[in-house]
């Protein structure tokens, strides 16, 4: 306690400044150690990825504005009206929103890979087969998956409808606030339309949730089909992996689309896929990106992997993700 009195912060602001200064010193050391010694193998974003994220974010905001506005405001450019304000506020950089968009980017890429490789048509996949199932829950859920996929394929479905309720709630009210700032007046129409949009939003109609529901109710004789992406289709395959690993649907999409095949191999092992089944899935999704190194690792290790250890590892991935993505007071309900 031999500090000079003048070192002591006298206001809240200077207290925070001092804390931040010390924090930055600590950060420098940590960056050094972590970057030097233990590379995290980050995937560098490609031009294509960045462009896709920007386009999708615009589409989300545009979709919400379309639902809220009777007549679009004239801002003199092609961006959504609230775009500039939301961008400036930093909200569009929120990890949960970017993660959602990146998951959709991954979803598109992976769906294309299945289509390119698979000889099955959509009508031969599990959701289509369930349409005629005697159990109404299965038939209705399969219908929801197919409808959602079809609308997405034909770009007639607003992307915001795939957002989780928590994220949509936050985004809608921010768009309302931004529109209010732009127009300078509080518009009761925007508020009532926002309430209507949120009240009508049905999470169970998104492909992600419908697929998870289908997997939940799937009779045992179809469970193995759900772990084959060609038979199941992408949403049901990913939902099946999510159900068995406890990881979130979007998390699995991003792990599959990541630069390494190792997380996918771990997921497949947790789901008890045999060596050959797992290799087929990895080849389907990774194709020519698979390096001899990855194949070696897979060949030497897959059979001897301990499922319990992998489950513990997957739980730690999920924990890290929750820490990274959680909104204050939101996203608390657990869903996979």
């Amino acid at each position, binding site marked *: 306690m031999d500090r000079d009195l003048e070192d002591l912060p006298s206001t809240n602001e200077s207290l*925070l400044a001092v804390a931040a200064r010390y*924090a930055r010193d600590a950060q420098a*050391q940590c960056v050094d150690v972590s970057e030097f010694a233990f590379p995290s193998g980050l995937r560098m974003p490609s031009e294509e990825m960045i462009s896709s994220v920007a386009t999708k974010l615009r589409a989300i905001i545009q979709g919400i504005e379309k639902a809220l506005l009777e007549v679009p405001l004239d801002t003199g450019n092609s961006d959504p009206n609230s775009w500039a304000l939301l961008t400036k506020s930093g909200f569009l950089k929120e990890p949960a929103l970017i993660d959602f968009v990146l998951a959709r980017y991954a979803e598109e890429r992976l769906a294309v890979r299945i289509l390119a490789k698979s000889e099955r048509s959509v009508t031969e996949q599990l959701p289509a087969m369930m349409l005629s199932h005697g159990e109404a829950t299965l038939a209705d859920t399969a219908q929801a998956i197919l409808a959602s996929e079809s609308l997405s394929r034909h770009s007639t479905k607003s992307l915001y409808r795939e957002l989780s309720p928590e994220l949509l709630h936050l985004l809608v009210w921010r768009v309302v606030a931004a529109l209010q700032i732009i127009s300078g007046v509080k518009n009761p129409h925007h508020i009532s339309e926002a309430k209507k949009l949120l009240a009508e939003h049905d999470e169970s109609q998104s492909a992600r949730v419908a697929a998870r529901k289908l997997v939940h109710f799937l009779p045992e004789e179809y469970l193995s089909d759900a772990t084959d992406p060609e038979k199941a289709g992408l949403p049901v395959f990913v939902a099946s992996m999510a159900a068995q690993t406890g990881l979130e649907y979007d998390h699995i999409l991003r792990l599959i689309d990541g630069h390494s095949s190792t997380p996918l191999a771990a997921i497949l092992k947790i789901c008890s896929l045999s060596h050959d089944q797992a290799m087929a899935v990895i080849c389907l999704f990774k194709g020519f990106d698979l390096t001899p190194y990855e194949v070696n690792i897979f060949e030497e290790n897959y059979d001897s992997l301990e499922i319990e250890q992998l489950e513990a590892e997957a739980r730690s991935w999920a924990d890290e993700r929750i820490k990274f993505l959680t909104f204050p007071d939101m996203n608390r309900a657990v869903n996979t």
Partner: protein
Amino acid sequence: VNSSLNLTSQATADVSSDGRLLRADEAIMRLHQQAGGVEGGIFAVPSLAAIARSTHQIKMRLARAVRVASDNNNIELWVESELLGDIATLSVSGWRAVDANPPQDKIDRDKQNDKGNNDGELLFDRNFRLVSAAGDVANFIDTKSIGAPAGDIFDTDRGNANILLSFMEKQELARVDGVFFKGHNTAYTILADVKSNAEGVFTGYLCELHSYDASATQDQNNLVSPEPLFGQQLAPVLRQPLGRIIANAETIGSKLQGPIRDSYATYAKDIANAARHLVALVDDLGDLEAIERPDFSTAKDNIELGDLSRRVAGLLALKAADHRITILIPPEELIVSAKAEFRRVLQILINLVTNAIRYSPVGTEVSISIDTKGELAKIAVSDEGAGIDPDNQQKIFEKFERLGRSGDGGSGLGLYISRRLARAMGGELEVANSKQGGAIFTLTLPTK
């Protein structure tokens, strides 16, 4: 849960905005009661209560799979909820027994119910007031003490009760030996378990009491732990508070809970970043500890040094561009194979190239070259910086050696770890100066 329930059985429940279970079909009511809930009380099944709470909060329809614990097994349920008036109505179906790891709420309840292996339990609320006493300890802590603060129950003049109380004030898990109660002469070992609700909000402490055996503790302390101290024992303890710092600082920095000055937000983001990197440091120091263990070993992968060079150049391209430095890589047709662990060699190279970028003048080149000599494969990283004084060329590989530099973000661990790794793979890491004056770090690795 009734064994007659199956995938198609449907049950509903109504939950009020303050979290009370107003009405429930039999199956849900049974889960609620098994979780310690009472009729008309707060909904006690955490995952279902969380969905009801979210429904009230955002007034939207939700549909989710959740896992809950019953007395006999774990069940996965499909839950759909919507807000009708001021009541969240949950519709629960798809009752599917699962044999995976029990959910945390079940583990907590089992611990709470497991009264056979201890001498009693004390439950404190969030203000550290006694809520209940069970087991042997109830013989001398009578009902008049219910509601009393923890400081009035533990004897802070004897033993280690003070330590326990200080842990509790900081809301940390604690195991404290030699704790005495006021007016009682037996010492106890106390395991204090932090309790929190489904949202992770601190709700109090459950203290398990065990007879304290001083001699056994002494013997235990004399044993050398075969477990890594940092990686397996300290790191998990450090991660939790750091996680809280990150979450709180992120909340402040993102301004999601209200507007604050930009400078405050910047400070908060700095704090969050620093804490995030401290978490990384904690993990890394755990790894460092692993490297220094005598049984540390590396894999023998077939690797190609040209491929590694290109990966490193790609990973560090942005960092190099920031310094307007160009990274030169070997031509694609040049193939140099080696036998070493891919991840570790990548780690060493990233360390060397990052160093080169950091200490090279702006606008210069960092070059990665590869070569084979006999049974050794070589990969060298050279820069156009000031080079390293020959007197210091060994010193820089020592742990925490910074050569008097400070403020550049270095910690003096990177080269130490790199050389240890190189040697563990049967290779070597050395440094020399080029004729032009820059430093050349050369990593040699076996080819077979």
